[in-house]
C-alpha cells in the first residue's frame, strides 16, 4: 500500500519554501548596518554643523552637552513627563475608540454606513486645522492636547481595524457556521484573530501620528512639554538646546515602534512559525 510512504513524503515537504528564498540577514549584520547609518549621519552633522554659525545648526557634541544640562536642571524631565502624559492618554483613548468603532463597523452594515462619510471627511481634514476649534472648546489644558492626539490616532486605527474585519476569510466564516458557531464565538475564534495583524498595523501608524499630534498640540496651546521646549529655545537662539527635545522625540518614535513590533511578534506568532 502506498499510504505510509506518501505520509513520509508529505512530512518531509514543509521546510522547502523558506530555504529557496533569499537568506535573511543575520542580526549582527543588521545591527551593524543600522548603527553605521546613525554614525554616518552624526559624523556628517558634526563636521558640517561645527563649521557654520552654531545658531543655525549646532552639532551633535553641543547637543549632547545641552542634553546633560537639561537633564540636570530638570527642564527636560518635566517636559517629557508632560508630553508623555498627553501622548499616553490620547493614544489610549484614540486607539480604543478606533478599535471598537472599527470592529462594530466591520460587522454591521448599518454602523459602517453611518460612520462612512463623517470618518472620511474628518480623515481628510488635516487634524492641525481643527486645533484652534479644539482650543476654543477645551481651553489650553491637558484635555485639549489629549483631544488633538486622539484625533491624530483614531483614524489610522479605525480604518485598519475596519479593513481587518472586512478581510476575514469568508471560507472560514462558512467553516465556523458549518460547525454551528454562534456569532459571539465567531468573534473570538475568527474575527479578532484575523483582524489582529491589521489592528497592530493601525497602531504602528498611529504611534508616529500621535507624536506629531503631541508636538502640534504643544506648539499651539501650551507652555509645557517637548513642543514648548522646542519653540522656547528656538526663539532664544539656543539651537543646541532646541535639538534636544527633537532628538528625544525621534528616540521615542523608534522605541515605541520597536515595542509594538515586539507585541505584534508575540500576538501573531503563527504567521512567523518556522516554515
Amino acid at each position, binding site marked *: 500500500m502506498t499510504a505510509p510512504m506518501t505520509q513520509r513524503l508529505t512530512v518531509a515537504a514543509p521546510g522547502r519554501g523558506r530555504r529557496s528564498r533569499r537568506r535573511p540577514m543575520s542580526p549582527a549584520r543588521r545591527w551593524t548596518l543600522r548603527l553605521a547609518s546613525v554614525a554616518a549621519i552624526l559624523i556628517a552633522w558634526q563636521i558640517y554643523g561645527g563649521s557654520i554659525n552654531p545658531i543655525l545648526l549646532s552639532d551633535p557634541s553641543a547637543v549632547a552637552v545641552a542634553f546633560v544640562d537639561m537633564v540636570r536642571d530638570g527642564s527636560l524631565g518635566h517636559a517629557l513627563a508632560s508630553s508623555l502624559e498627553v501622548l499616553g492618554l490620547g493614544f489610549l483613548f484614540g486607539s480604543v475608540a478606533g478599535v471598537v468603532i472599527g470592529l462594530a463597523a466591520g460587522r454591521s452594515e448599518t454602523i459602517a454606513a453611518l460612520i462612512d462619510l463623517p470618518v472620511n471627511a474628518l480623515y481628510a481634514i488635516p487634524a492641525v486645522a481643527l486645533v484652534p476649534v479644539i482650543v476654543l472648546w477645551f481651553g489650553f489644558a491637558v484635555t485639549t492636547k489629549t483631544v488633538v492626539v486622539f484625533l491624530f490616532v483614531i483614524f489610522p486605527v479605525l480604518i485598519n481595524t475596519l479593513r481587518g474585519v472586512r478581510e476575514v476569510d469568508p471560507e472560514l466564516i462558512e*467553516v465556523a457556521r458549518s*460547525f454551528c458557531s454562534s456569532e459571539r464565538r465567531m468573534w473570538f475564534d475568527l474575527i479578532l484573530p484575523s483582524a489582529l495583524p491589521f489592528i497592530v498595523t493601525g497602531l504602528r501608524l498611529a504611534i508616529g501620528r500621535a507624536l506629531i499630534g503631541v508636538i502640534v498640540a504643544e506648539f499651539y496651546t501650551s507652555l509645557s512639554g517637548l513642543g514648548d521646549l522646542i519653540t522656547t529655545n528656538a526663539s532664544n537662539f539656543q539651537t543646541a538646546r532646541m535639538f534636544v527635545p527633537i532628538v528625544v522625540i525621534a528616540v521615542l518614535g523608534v522605541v515605541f515602534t520597536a515595542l509594538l513590533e515586539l507585541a505584534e511578534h508575540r500576538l501573531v506568532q503563527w504567521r512567523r*512559525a518556522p516554515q
Partner: protein
Amino acid sequence: MASPHLVLDNVCVELGGARILQDVSLTVAEREFVCVIGTSGGGKTTLLRTIAGLLPVASGSVSLDGAPVDGPSPRAAVVFQHFGLFPWKTVRSNIAYGLRVQGRPVDQDLIRRMLEILRLTDVADYYPSQLSGGMKQRVGIARALATEPEVLLLDEPFSSLDAITRESLQNEVLRLWEANANMTALQVTHDIDEALLMADRVVVVSGPPGHITFELKVDLPRPRDSQEIRSHPDYPRMRKLLWDSLNTPAAGPLPAPGAAPARESAPARKGAPARPHVRPGTAPLSEAT
C-alpha cells in the same frame, strides 16, 4: 436498502436570483456512501452546502431522520475542498475546534486518537502553514470526525492535492468510513475513479440548474482499495457508464430510444443485481458519440 436517513425532496436552490438546483430528490440510507459527481458549475457543491444547512432552499425540503434541516447541525460535519483550517490555531486546536464551538467537552483522549488515526501526532503543535496540502486535509478530516457526526459531508476533499497524496488519502478515508459503524457519507467529486472507489451509489448532477441525471449503484465488494478495485471485471463498464452520463448534454432529454437501461447492468458480486438506476426522463446513454 436500510430506512431513509437523509431525504431531499424536490429541492430547489437559488443564489442571487439564479436557480442553481432544480427539483433535486435524493434519499440516502443510513451508513450509505453516496458520491455526487458532475462537471464544475453544475451545482454539486451547492447541493452539499444545502444539505449542510449552509444555504436555504427556495422550495422543497431537506430532512434528516424526518427532522427538517434548516441550518447547520452538529449531526453533520463538513470537510472542505479548501481545508478551512484556522491559520492561528495549531493542528491540535484545529481538530478540537468543532467540539469546542459546539460547547461539548474536549476529550483529550479523543483528540489524541484522531491525531493518531490520521497520523498527525508528530505535527500536533504545528500551525497549518507548516503543513503540506495532504496533511492539512488530514486535519480537516480529523476535525470533522472529532465531532462524531452521523453524516459526513465531503466537498471535493481531495481535488487540491497531488495525485499520489490524493490516492493515499482516498484509501484512508475509505478505511475510516468502513471501520465506522454508523456514519453516512456524502462526497462531492469530479473524479469518476474516486466516485467508484468510495461510493455505494454515484449520483450524477448536471446543470445549471443542477439536477440529477443519472444514478449508478456501485456494488463492488468492500473493503475496497484504489489499486485493487480497478482490476475488478465490472469496473471498466461502470466507469464508461459514468463517463458517458457526464458527457451527455445536460439540457433536456435526448431522443435515444435504443439505449435501454438493461444494457448497462453490471453483474453483482454478492447476489443482488447491480443495475444502474437510470431515472425516467433523464438523458440516456447514447452509443453514437
